[in-house]
């Protein structure tokens, strides 16, 4: 992965910079010993590593502002970091950058049930937001699989999704407001507990901006009352086409499940070996989950089952109790872990129009043969967000490169059929240089203009999102 040359003059000034940072932060909040900065050398995209100049762990918004003022004055790139679970290299440092970690900003500031909002510091983990309200019957809806670890800060930066976003939407649909520090240290409040923007929707563009517009320190989120219950059904089909038609028919019938998950044969087999969930070994498997009271669940499931029957499923399994429900989810939830057991894998994240599902799956199969690497498919079928998993062996020279090339082909395929490069993981460094496949120069210029406004010197997370050659002059001017 190509990264910009580190600025030698910054590397030379390391001691002075560390000293300045020490002047505004407690001693244990500045990490500069090379043995310790290695903890920040990568995120969830572990194939690429580079230790930062140093890392800071501020505990208040004011400390964040003080750090940014120093970096702004010194012209030092800053890479904001939540929990470092990004799969796109969004939080990967450069050697001349300061990692600004928000892990110590983890408090709940206000819980407001009458208005159904919670305000938290941004380093709080996704799951512990729900944890703060769940005894009162509420939850925070977006639920990335990494929710135990990932921070709200990272969720906002990546506009993360989750298994239940078919019904509840992704982060941007559940975010009411943020407190953010601009690169020059200015603290701004955008949005709040009320709905919609009074002027331009700045919150809308901050969410999903991958840490390039400002450092988010607090967030006001929408919370909802938990549904009375939820139940999945599992169905197996002997072709991807039929499974795809079934998904489309369910949606057309007006049933809106909270989740429709898809697994192909390779994934089913691997997951069965690993989790023994008792899945049928068929070509395509769907897990459809609905919510509500018992009566409502029954009403929805009966419609879904009737639709499934018209497609001659090889298996149609209901859960009669919580235990059986957990077994249906078991294999799906362990999919990534199971894959990791047998191989190194690269997880792609393109989205396609659901009508293109059969074609894209077939094409992926062909590409997989061409490149000689297996690809498993497990994804959110209701919204077309695919997760092709390319299996490779990192110890075999050249396989990572072959895997990357195959990944690029698959993502371009997603774009060609009317979809996009990434549905929820973000561009980061991973898909940065593929952006030209989806966007024209004018499209990219319009986005870079927005960064020019928020961060004129391109100091925040500068080498991400945009193809290096497109952002070169702007970064050089810094």
């Amino acid at each position, binding site marked *: 992965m190509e990264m910009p040359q580190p600025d030698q003059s910054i590397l030379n000034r390391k001691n002075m910079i560390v000293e300045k940072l020490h002047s505004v932060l407690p001693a244990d909040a500045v990490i500069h010993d090379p043995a310790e900065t290695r903890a920040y050398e990568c995120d969830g995209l572990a194939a690429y590593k580079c230790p930062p100049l140093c890392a800071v762990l501020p505990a208040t918004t004011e400390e964040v502002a003080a750090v940014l003022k120093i970096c702004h004055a010194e012209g030092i790139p800053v890479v904001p970091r939540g929990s470092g679970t990004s799969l796109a290299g969004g939080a990967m440092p450069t050697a001349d950058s300061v990692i600004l970690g928000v892990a110590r900003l983890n408090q709940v500031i206000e819980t*407001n049930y*009458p*208005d*159904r909002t919670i305000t938290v510091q941004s380093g709080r983990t996704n799951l512990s937001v729900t944890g703060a309200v769940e005894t009162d019957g509420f939850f925070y809806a977006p639920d990335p699989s990494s929710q135990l670890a990932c921070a709200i800060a990272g969720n906002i930066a990546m*506009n993360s*999704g989750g298994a239940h976003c078919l019904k509840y*939407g992704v982060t*941007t*649909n559940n975010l009411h407001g943020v407190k953010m520090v601009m690169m020059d240290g200015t603290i*701004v409040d955008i949005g*709040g507990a*009320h*709905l*919609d*923007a*009074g*002027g331009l*929707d*700045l*919150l*809308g*563009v901050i*969410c*999903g*901006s991958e840490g390039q517009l400002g450092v988010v320190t607090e967030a006001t989120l929408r919370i909802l009352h938990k549904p*009375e219950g939820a139940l999945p059904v599992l169905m197996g089909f002997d072709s991807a086409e039929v499974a795809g038609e079934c998904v489309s028919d369910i949606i*057309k019938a*007006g049933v*809106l499940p909270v989740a429709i998950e898809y697994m192909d044969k390779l994934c089913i087999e691997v997951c069965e070996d690993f989790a023994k969930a008792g899945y049928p070994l068929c070509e395509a498997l769907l897990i459809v989950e609905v919510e*509500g*009271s018992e*009566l*409502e669940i029954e009403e*929805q499931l009966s*419609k879904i089952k009737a639709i499934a029957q018209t497609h001659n499923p090889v298996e149609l399994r209901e859960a009669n109790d919580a235990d059986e429900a957990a077994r249906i989810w078991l294999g799906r939830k362990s999919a990534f872990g199971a894959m990791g057991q047998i191989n190194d894998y690269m997880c792609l994240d393109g*989205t396609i*129009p*659901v009508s293109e599902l059969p074609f894209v799956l077939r094409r992926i199969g062909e590409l997989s043969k061409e490149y000689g690497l297996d690809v498993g498919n497990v994804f959110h079928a209701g*919204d*077309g*967000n695919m997760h092709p998993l390319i299996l490779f062996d990192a110890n075999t020279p050249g396989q990572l490169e072959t895997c990357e090339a195959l990944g690029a082909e698959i993502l371009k395929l997603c774009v060609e059929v009317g*979809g*996009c*490069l990434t549905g*929820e993981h*973000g*561009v980061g460094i991973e898909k940065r240089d593929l*952006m030209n496949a*989806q*966007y*024209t120069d004018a499209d990219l*210029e*319009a*986005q870079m203009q*927005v*960064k*020019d*406004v*928020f961060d004129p010197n391109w100091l925040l997370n500068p080498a991400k999102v*945009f193809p290096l050659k497109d952002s070169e002059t702007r970064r050089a001017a810094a």
Partner: protein
Amino acid sequence: MIEPKTEAELAEALKSANGPLRISGGGTRDYGRPVQGEVISTSKLSGITLYEPGALTIVAQAGTPVSEIEAELAKNNQRLAFEPMDHRAILGQEGSPTIGGVIAANVSGPRRISVGAARDFLLGVRFVDGEGKIIKNGGRVMKNVTGYDLVKLMAGSFGTLGILTEVSLKVMPADETAATLILNGLDVEQAVAAMSSALGSPYDVTGAAHIPASGHTVVRIEGFEKSVAYRTEKLTQHLSAIGTAEIISGDAHDLLWQDVRDAKALSGAEGDIWRVSVKPSDGPAVIQAVNPTSYLMDWGGGLIWMETPSGTDVRALIPDIAGHSTLIKASPAIRSEIATFQPEPKPLALISNELRSKFDPRGILNPGLMS
């Protein structure tokens, strides 16, 4: 009036424009600071370009009438779930609302409280910026985090960043049936408490409004037949400490929500009309501080439509309540005097201004409208 027939023509028109332009879709939402300039209309950029019911997506040119889209969706038992309001009831303008206008003004209705606003259903846009450059962002798939979300930025930008030429939207299945609980005679505090309690229940409320004109506080439930019956009963019990609910459904129910959506209660207003967005629990304080001639509350109390004596600056009466107020209807003279859009704090105003000057360096697109 300039009426481009294609996106390319529109781009040419913007390149060669040499003065301010007033952008018009259906011309039914003429609010904000009055804009001087030649009218440029999207009405000839019309038509649905793609509709995939199984994928819940529709793509249409910006000038497509909303009614055409709604009719097409209805054939497949689908709809725009954000329930865009029709401003004609309070503004009295002629013309037919376009989908581009809905998006440019981020217009939503009662269901916004549960499913989200117009911006939440907008999957992609094509637009022409102030220099005549054609730009696209987003696409037509449900999940897309590829690059910055200019889709959200364009929604509610009232043409000041660019003229929309095409929008793609997520659509939703229409519900099989619906019912509304009506509570009678609650004062504003009780009404907001009742609505908060309903919205904070597990019964999936999709509308909560307080209509002082009729004395009604109304809570809507939608879905499949049995489910609606079940939740209606549960919610009636849930609210029984506050009052006894009457239940309606059918045409009267639909009309009721159409009236809430369009703020019909204020259609005869002789004074000015303001639209205020606050957190619901601040709603009663707003009413107390402003003491409006008449009002209507939607979104559980968080959206307040108010009629005030002409020339009242509502913002001055609620300086400490977080949120935003928009002057929707007033004479052009008053709309030139009182800021029509909520003034932003300085650093944010700076960002907004700079964004506008990047996208429209000559300042020709609806100049000053959002002020």
